């Protein structure tokens, strides 16, 4: 009944012409209008003469039936549900001064008063008086909770309540039922209302300039109150309670946020980490840091324009294009468990084994903080260099920067790690600074900055001094690169990279001291590796091991035949990959899949049949005939 009435209220703004031809609705509209007028009258401030002077003689108070009915009639559906499940909650709202009736400010209430001497009367009471009396006589247990939701104690109360986010329809229904029955719930909803009220008043203040001073002061007070309360709420607490308090009347509406299979909702609800899409959004918006609102706006954009993800969201020209659309990425990310709080550059890194090995180490938290920075290349290479060092095999590191010494005219080479870093000694930029100094081209150790050819404008003042590294664009990947070094506006030196970054992702030879990336990771990072021989084992591993991921290597021509078409017999381009999720559809199994060429934030859903074909054919062509499919945990 209430929901019917409330939906009638929502239709209040329909046109007169509509109502003129709908007599039932017209009479309903009149009912709502007259109720509003009644409530305005009932709840308006009472003149002082009508207010009772002593409350000590009162034994109990109740709202008059007509007052109660009118309040319930006009209350939003979400609140009505709360009032029904816990009758004291209405009075919590009244006492907390929650203006839950839009446009009606409640100052007084029409109440039936019973005095200690047995007499009764109906009178308008100021809301504070009524609340004090009502909680004293009718909701004394509920009264205890006011003290727990004061600004000072709010944070601890929320910590004690430990909000657990639902994860499916069943847990959501359970959560809804539990929260409806908790005595603290109306108090928390009242605080949420105050936060939201502050936000809406801020928007009002910003949109309207002609607000008189007294009203402006009142609005500012409400904004301050909302902000003060908000500091006690974590994002997770606020998001959950806000959804609960406004949607509790409908299980389907409330649970559509939690039983969802859409990554946008999961991130919005803090059920999935924001990094799953925030890195993509940073690139799309061009902002290095995103506020929560900016992230939400971006998520909405991705949801409403799924084609956006086909080209955008990865570093330009760094990943296999087109990427899946946003809906498909969402489907994959919901199932994905790979920890991806970073962004890398597969094309510039140029070896899909290094890309994949780095992603594995990042997933298991095995990348040292020392190498982390914003460069999308350096941390990957530095992590690989780290495992060489840990294995005491840095002597086998093949990458060097070389130059012809201006004095001796002989080639000089220095070990380096591709990519740039402000302090890491072996980072490309720092090695070049050292070369400039040791070859006496620079009198002091100068910081060298990397810029591309298009950015270098010799006529500009800033380029007339300092050290600038300009890679040769045409064939410059991070492992094979020639660079021009400009020092104080003059071309000072040509530096070139030497050494092929030929690292096997998995073992390819027996009796060799040169170990594969997987072997080194297993040995130095305490990551357990097990062979996976069947689809059943793969599914079992992914579902049973909380952090477990599967890695493998297969022929690109079988994994992505649309991208890599076979051109001659038995062509196989070995391509490492990571699988971190599984789903069944129409009796077929699909995996969440990222090859070392894919953007880390744009996983694809690949059928098992393609993966099986790629591994099986790869094993026939592999030097050791290995079945390249391993579970890592």
């Amino acid at each position: 009944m209430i929901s019917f009435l409330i939906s009638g209220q929502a239709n209040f703004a329909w046109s007169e012409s509509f109502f003129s031809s709908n007599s039932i609705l017209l009479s309903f509209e009149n009912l709502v209008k007259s109720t509003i007028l009644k409530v305005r009258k009932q709840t308006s401030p009472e003149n002082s003469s009508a207010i009772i002077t002593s409350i000590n003689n009162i034994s109990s108070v109740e709202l008059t039936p007509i007052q109660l009915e009118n309040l319930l009639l006009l209350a939003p559906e979400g609140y009505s549900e709360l009032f029904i499940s816990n009758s004291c909650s209405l009075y919590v709202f009244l006492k907390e001064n929650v203006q839950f009736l839009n446009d009606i400010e409640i100052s007084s209430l029409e109440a039936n008063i019973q005095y200690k001497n047995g007499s009764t009367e109906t009178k308008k009471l100021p809301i504070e008086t009524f609340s004090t009396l009502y909680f004293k006589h009718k909701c004394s247990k509920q009264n205890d909770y006011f003290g727990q939701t004061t600004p000072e104690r709010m944070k601890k109360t929320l910590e004690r309540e430990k909000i657990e986010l639902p994860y499916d329809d069943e847990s959501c229904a359970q959560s809804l039922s539990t929260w409806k029955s908790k005595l603290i719930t109306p108090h928390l909803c009242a605080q949420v209302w105050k936060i939201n009220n502050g936000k809406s008043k801020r928007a009002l203040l910003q949109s309207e300039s002609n607000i008189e001073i007294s009203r402006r002061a009142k609005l500012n007070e409400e904004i301050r109150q909302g902000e003060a309360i908000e500091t006690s709420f974590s994002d997770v607490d606020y998001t959950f309670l806000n959804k609960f308090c406004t949607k509790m009347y409908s299980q389907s509406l409330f649970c559509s946020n939690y039983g969802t299979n859409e990554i946008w909702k999961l991130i919005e609800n803090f059920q999935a980490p924001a990094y799953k899409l925030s890195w993509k959004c940073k690139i799309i918006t061009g902002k290095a840091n995103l506020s929560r609102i900016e992230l939400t706006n971006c998520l909405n954009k991705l949801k409403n324009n799924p084609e956006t993800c086909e080209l955008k969201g990865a570093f330009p020209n760094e990943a296999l294009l087109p990427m899946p659309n946003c809906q498909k990425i969402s489907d994959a990310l919901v199932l994905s468990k790979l920890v991806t709080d970073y962004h890398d550059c597969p094309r510039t890194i140029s070896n899909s084994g290094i890309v994949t090995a780095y992603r594995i180490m990042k997933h298991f938290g095995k990348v040292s903080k020392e190498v982390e920075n914003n460069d999308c290349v350096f941390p990957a290479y530095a992590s690989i260099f780290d495992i060489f060092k840990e294995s005491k095999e840095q002597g086998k590191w093949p990458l060097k920067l070389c130059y012809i010494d201006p004095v001796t005219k002989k080639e000089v080479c220095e070990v380096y790690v591709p990519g740039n870093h402000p302090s890491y000694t072996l980072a490309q930029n720092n090695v070049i600074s050292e070369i400039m100094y040791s070859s006496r081209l620079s009198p002091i150790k100068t910081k060298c900055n990397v810029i591309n050819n298009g950015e270098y404008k010799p006529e500009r003042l800033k380029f007339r001094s300092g050290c600038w590294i300009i890679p040769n664009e045409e064939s410059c990947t991070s492992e094979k690169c020639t660079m021009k070094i400009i020092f104080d506006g003059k071309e000072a030196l040509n530096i070139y990279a030497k050494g092929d970054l030929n690292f096997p992702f998995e073992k390819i030879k027996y009796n060799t001291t040169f170990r594969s990336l997987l072997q080194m990771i297993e040995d130095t990072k305490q990551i357990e590796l097990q062979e996976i021989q069947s689809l059943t084992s793969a599914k079992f591993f992914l579902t049973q091991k909380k952090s477990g991921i599967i890695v493998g290597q297969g022929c690109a021509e079988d994994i992505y035949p649309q991208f890599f078409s076979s051109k001659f017999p038995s062509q196989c381009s070995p391509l490492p990959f990571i699988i971190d999720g599984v789903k069944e559809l129409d009796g077929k199994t699909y995996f969440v899949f990222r090859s070392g060429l894919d953007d880390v934030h744009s996983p694809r859903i690949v059928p098992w049949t393609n993966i099986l074909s790629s591994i099986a054919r790869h094993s026939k062509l592999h030097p050791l005939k290995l079945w390249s499919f391993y579970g890592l945990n």
Partner: protein
Amino acid sequence: MVLIRMILILTYSLSTFSKTQLLEFTAKQNIFNIKYIAKENDTTFYLKGNDTLALSTNYKALEILKQKGISEFGVVKNPNDSTYLIFSKQNNFESLSPLLSGDIYLFNTNSKKMIMLGNGINPKFNTDGTIISYFQPELNKIIFRKKINLDNPLEIRLNSKQMSFIPQVEIVDEKNIYYTDRNNDYKEGVIKLDFLTQKRIILIKSENIQTRFEICSNSKEVNILETNISPTGFTFIYSLAHSENDLSKRNFLFDSKSGSSFQMSCSEKEIFFIKYFGDNAVYSELFRFDIASKKTFVISDLDFVTNYFKFEENIYIPFRRNIYAVQNKEKNWTISKEFKENLNDEVNVK
């Protein structure tokens, strides 16, 4: 002699474990090591060890290319003479980049002479075997050389700079070069280039980034496969005479609304391609379009075909741990089921 014996025991056998009706291509040694077989002089190119390409003929066996480290080799035959293009990618299990160039050589089985042509991927001969082309992904250039003037490489620079884009190239002659490229909005198109005048005509441009093209040609016309990157997409195949520059004059050969296609190749009489079909496009088989009858046939039954190759006119499908022949010893199609889509877009081969 041992090498020759290995080749002689190549045979077809009915697969014991698979449900397929196709004949399995078997040998005592790893069948995947065979890189090319040609009838002339019983020529076989095969992988020896992990780093050497060897050749066996009626008369003798010899190593023709030895590389440092484990390497991949590809062999492409000239349709009209005894020359072959050899592609070799060193350390391919270590460099782990499908888009990295390999070495490309021209080899003559009669003279045993090997000429290094350059670096790139996807080397191929044109229809009459007089022009060699390949793509250099690092420099974004299609390189082509006329066999009579190998020392003079000619190049076509692409507009696309995307890592995943590998162009299709069909060179009829210098005046009729077809290739695919992408514009700055990542949309793909088919371009016809008269290299002598450098006049370019965009034959067709895709309307979205999901559409891709493949091309192959015979002596009279170019065939264009227009399809979607997603398996559940569409397939069109049409032909355009080499003398035509106007795509409205094209001849539609095949269309399917449910299931994209890839790896098209053609001869004078037939067009082959792999096509997805079925609910959610979960199946993929090798298809054969007969140009004369304009009928399409499904010629495999493996459910999940991802690639195929040809040794001269013989077609084989590598499938997981095996390789299957789609023709029997008499060169008839082992499986040939006419493909039709009904009005509900349901595919009636499954």
